């Protein structure tokens, strides 16, 4: 379990003091895939770097399994860092080493003997699906493959936590999806907690169970992804869920009820869902806003529907949509 307590971080710049993080409190349970999302400059990268003390917080603590890692000596901290490894937006592979040697790198640092390190690296190449790339150099690989090697490297020291700093931001949607699948798979199979830093709501939607929304250094909202999606409370959350004109979309129209439909991998992308609902259930719904993407034959994203009708109509519409697997449906109410 990772507990972030009253964490603040200030930077001294030429223009004075900049508060990057202000009194952040978060708890990340073991085995979670935890999203931290925010716009550029919200403090996400600083926050993730405080978790492994690459940045020293100005105030507050980071507890990992109850241990205050800010209080550790430099050499103890280096050992702890083997348990909280990190992958990056730019992959950060050693360009002059083969993939195998890249994966061996953290093991070398830890003093593991060469033969054992090589054996472990070969296993990890299997895990990330690139067993034939052992002797290739990073420059010979695509972005997605490079990130897989980086993931293998991050797993080499059997970490408890994997920090992902915009790990998919440099990748195209299809590759992003396959990397996210790999991370989910690692989370399931190896039980490693994952902290995903991202500015893409789609990434959070796709794999995170919980999410914290960071805005100007503050955590403005925190909770289950499904909850935040169906009823974003803060301005920042609304902006992220509906990047274009969240305010207008969420403006109440008289007599209209609104329901949010969240697709998390539903095999529904080719079904004319709303049209079918109109034909089969005779419910006319207007799409107030949508941000959905299809990856392969699966749909991700969410949609806000406006329905004119009584409780019964809304209930029927929700039941209809709920009958489709991997679709979450929730009514959006004012006090939400």
């Amino acid at each position, binding site marked *: 379990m990772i507990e972030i307590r009253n964490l603040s971080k200030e930077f001294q710049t030429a223009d004075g003091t900049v508060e990057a993080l202000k009194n952040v409190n978060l708890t990340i349970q073991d085995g979670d895939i935890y999203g931290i999302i925010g716009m550029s400059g919200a403090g996400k990268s600083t926050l993730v770097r405080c978790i492994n003390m690459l940045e020293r917080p100005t105030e507050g603590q980071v507890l990992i399994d109850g241990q205050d890692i800010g209080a550790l000596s430099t050499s103890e901290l280096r050992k702890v860092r083997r348990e909280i490894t990190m992958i990056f937006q730019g992959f950060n592979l050693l360009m002059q080493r083969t993939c195998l040697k890249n994966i061996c790198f953290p093991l070398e640092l830890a003093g593991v003997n060469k033969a054992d390190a090589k054996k472990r690296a070969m296993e990890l190449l299997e895990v990330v699906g690139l067993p034939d790339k052992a002797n290739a150099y990073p420059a010979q*690989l695509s972005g997605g493959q490079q990130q897989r090697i980086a993931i293998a490297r991050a797993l080499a020291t059997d970490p408890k936590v994997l920090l992902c700093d915009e790990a998919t931001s440099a990748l195209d949607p299809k590759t992003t999806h396959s990397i996210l699948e790999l991370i989910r798979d690692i989370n399931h199979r190896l039980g490693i907690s994952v902290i995903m830093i991202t500015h893409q709501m789609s990434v959070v939607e796709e794999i995170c169970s919980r999410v914290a929304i960071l805005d100007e250094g503050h955590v403005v909202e925190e909770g289950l992804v499904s909850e935040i999606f169906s009823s974003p409370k803060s301005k920042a959350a609304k902006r992220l869920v509906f990047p274009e004109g969240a305010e207008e979309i969420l403006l109440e129209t008289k007599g209209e009820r609104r329901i949010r439909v969240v697709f998390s991998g539903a095999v529904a992308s080719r079904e004319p869902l709303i049209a079918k609902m109109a034909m089969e259930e005779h419910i006319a719904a207007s799409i107030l806003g949508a941000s959905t993407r299809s990856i392969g034959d699966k749909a991700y994203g969410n949609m806000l529907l406006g329905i004119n009708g009584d409780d019964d109509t809304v209930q029927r519409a929700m039941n209809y949509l709920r009958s489709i697997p991997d679709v979450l449906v929730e009514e959006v109410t004012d006090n939400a």
Partner: protein
Amino acid sequence: MLDKLLSPETIEETLRIVQNEFPLAIWETLYVTVIATALAIVIGLPLGVLLVAGEKNGVLPLPRPVMQVLNVVINLLRSVPFLILMIMVFPLARLIVGTAVGTVASIVPLVIAAFPFVARLVESSLREVNPNIIEMAQSMGASPFQIIMKVMIPESVPSLLSNFTIAITTILGYSAMSGIIGGGGLGKIAINYGYYRYMYLVMLLAVILLIVLVQIFQSVGTRLSVKSDKRLKGK
């Protein structure tokens, strides 16, 4: 003048000098250059590493006064003209090799002139290393020494090789100058025969050989640098 320069007697004597003296001179030039470069790297590489690692935001921050002294010493040595430096280090050469003149003695001023230069070249190579890669190593629990030995230096090998090539060709040029203080090699031949005895043909040949050596060093160095760079491997 040209007929005098190319008269049969001159050509004959020139050929004699080429046969008798050039092989040794080439050898002397080569070994002085290579040894001086090697020693300059031995001293300059760690200093270059300190210049980068020892900075405030470096992996191994050193006290400010230490960095200031380091920078001042390097700049100072780099600003003394080589001809003057050779004379200034006479006592040191005497201390180290027992004499201030001759081929071996000329290695001392060469190293002293070259190591600050090499330190700056190393500094510029190491600064090219992507800071994100250094952060990655820190995030994996690397110590400053491990970052230097396993990340900064190996990642900048192609750039280091290309900068060491610049160093060796520059040192080759300096070594020719050391002919003035009795250092052996092609420089001595050019000065002794060309300048003191007006045998321009000998001087010309010595200079041509120096040019050829520079060309060889440069193309070998460039090839090594390109070959060592794994970023240039095709997909």
